């Protein structure tokens, strides 16, 4: 095989990840002390990025466990792009399937919340509307309008565990409360101004935002929310979403054929 730049690079990457390099030029490098410098830098750069993106997971499991686990993830899923701010999108799924993480069944959900924070942090800047804006609309028009969710808003309903309370305590560096009730929880993360803020969210409110994000008009979004949470106070929920800045605008569907 001709020794090309491409064949050198194929072999160098193989060697970085511990495979035999099929290029004699690279084979001659692996034994030099300097090769470990590249291997360490590549792995450390990726592990550092994960550590930065998953601070609540890090606090829960400790530095040693995190870095050992992250190294296994890096070997399986190296970064796919240079923006390491985005690295770890499927780290929660990895944790869900990772045998040593079994004793902490809520860990994947905590990781998911950390990643929602990342997404909210780098989302486009946008303004939001207020309750007064909504009140300016005639009710008949409003029920056929769509509430456009703020581009930084991220939410999720965790059916199996109080993931939000656990995540929040670790994100804020405090103890998980003693009176923790083991039940499903939802969370809303949002960047209405400069910084990402978070709050709990009911299952109905999560369903409402899901429907809005899916382009449902307000009437059908409300219906879906009430199906999930029959006794929810819908107007209070919408008012809360507007007050925290979760709604960017009210959009009217074009009804012309």
């Amino acid at each position: 095989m001709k020794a090309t730049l491409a064949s050198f690079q194929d072999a160098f990457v193989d060697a970085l990840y511990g495979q035999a390099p099929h290029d004699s030029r690279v084979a001659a490098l692996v034994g030099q002390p300097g090769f470990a410098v590249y291997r360490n830098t590549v792995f450390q750069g990726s592990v550092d990025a994960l550590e930065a993106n998953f601070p609540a997971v890090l606090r829960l499991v400790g530095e040693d466990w995190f870095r050992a686990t992250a190294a296994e993830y890096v070997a399986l899923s190296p970064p796919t792009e240079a923006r390491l701010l985005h690295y770890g999108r499927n780290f929660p799924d990895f944790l869900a399937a990772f045998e040593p993480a079994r004793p902490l069944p809520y860990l994947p959900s905590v990781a998911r919340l950390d990643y929602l924070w990342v997404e909210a942090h780098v989302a486009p800047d946008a303004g939001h509307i207020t309750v007064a804006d909504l009140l300016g609309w005639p009710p008949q028009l409003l029920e056929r309008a769509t509430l456009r969710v703020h581009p930084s808003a991220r939410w999720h309903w965790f059916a199996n565990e109080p993931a939000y309370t656990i995540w929040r305590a670790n994100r804020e560096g405090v103890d998980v409360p003693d009176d923790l009730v083991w039940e499903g929880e939802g969370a809303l993360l949002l960047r209405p101004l400069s910084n990402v803020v978070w709050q709990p969210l009911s299952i109905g409110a999560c369903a409402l935002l899901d429907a809005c994000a899916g382009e449902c008009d307000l009437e059908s979004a409300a219906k879906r929310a009430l199906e999930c949470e029959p006794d929810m106070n819908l107007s209070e929920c919408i008012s809360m979403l507007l007050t925290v800045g979760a709604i960017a605008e009210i959009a009217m569907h074009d009804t012309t054929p």
Partner: protein
Amino acid sequence: MASPCHTNIALGAGLGLKPQHYEDAYAVVGDGTWFEVHPENYLVDGGPRLTWLEAIRARHPLSLHGVSLSLAADRDPDVVHLQRLKALIERVEPALVSEHLAWSAWGDHYHPDLLPFPRTQDALVRVAANISRSQDTLGRRIAIENPTHYLTIEGHDWSEGDFLREIVRRTGCGLLVDVNNVFVSAHNLSIDPVAYLNAIPSDAVMEIHLAGHSVDTNGALLIDSHDAAIADGVWRLYQCLIDRIGPCPTLIERDGKVPAFDVLLHERQRAQSLLDHGVSMEAMA
């Protein structure tokens, strides 16, 4: 052609910008201080990072120092990445844009390091093509940084000095001379750092980098770790370089064990004094 060193002389000495120093950097008063960032950390749709960068840019010149264009990979630069970089350039209008003579993106993955390659004739053609394509897309000249070396690679057709000179000739790009990289590589590969620096074509130099390094745990290698004060030997090489090529925008890099902002300003002032001294010597000549 006017030397780029002279067109950018107002830049003086600058500092790498770390998020923990945003407020300090914003508050620095004039005197030619400028800041450099890795654009990869700002290729986002919105949020506080971009807000800070724009606020600091409104008060100080800025340099974008890329780590991921992967110009020495045997493939075209990533079009999406180049377009994002171009958008950031249009947004913050940096005084300088630079990249490395290295590769990091290969296959479907990005390997966060500046990886080495044999400087063959094929590599020269490929690197020159990638630089030209990048400059065409970005609509501006970029400076290419000499890498740090840890490995003795067989099969080079070109010395690094000649390789750099040739890509400058073929593409019109500039050079970013990282004096710490020269110091560290000279130690690791047993080459003469002064001879290396003397081979750098002075007209092409757009920027100089200074940084600290550390000793590998085995004690055999120096590591370009950017986690310490600039070593005396690096300061001496820097003095040699600016004695030969004249004053040039100079950046202090610190990425690990980042000290208080004042400590970095103090290092910056040392570089600025050497630059000012160079100017006065030149003026007297």
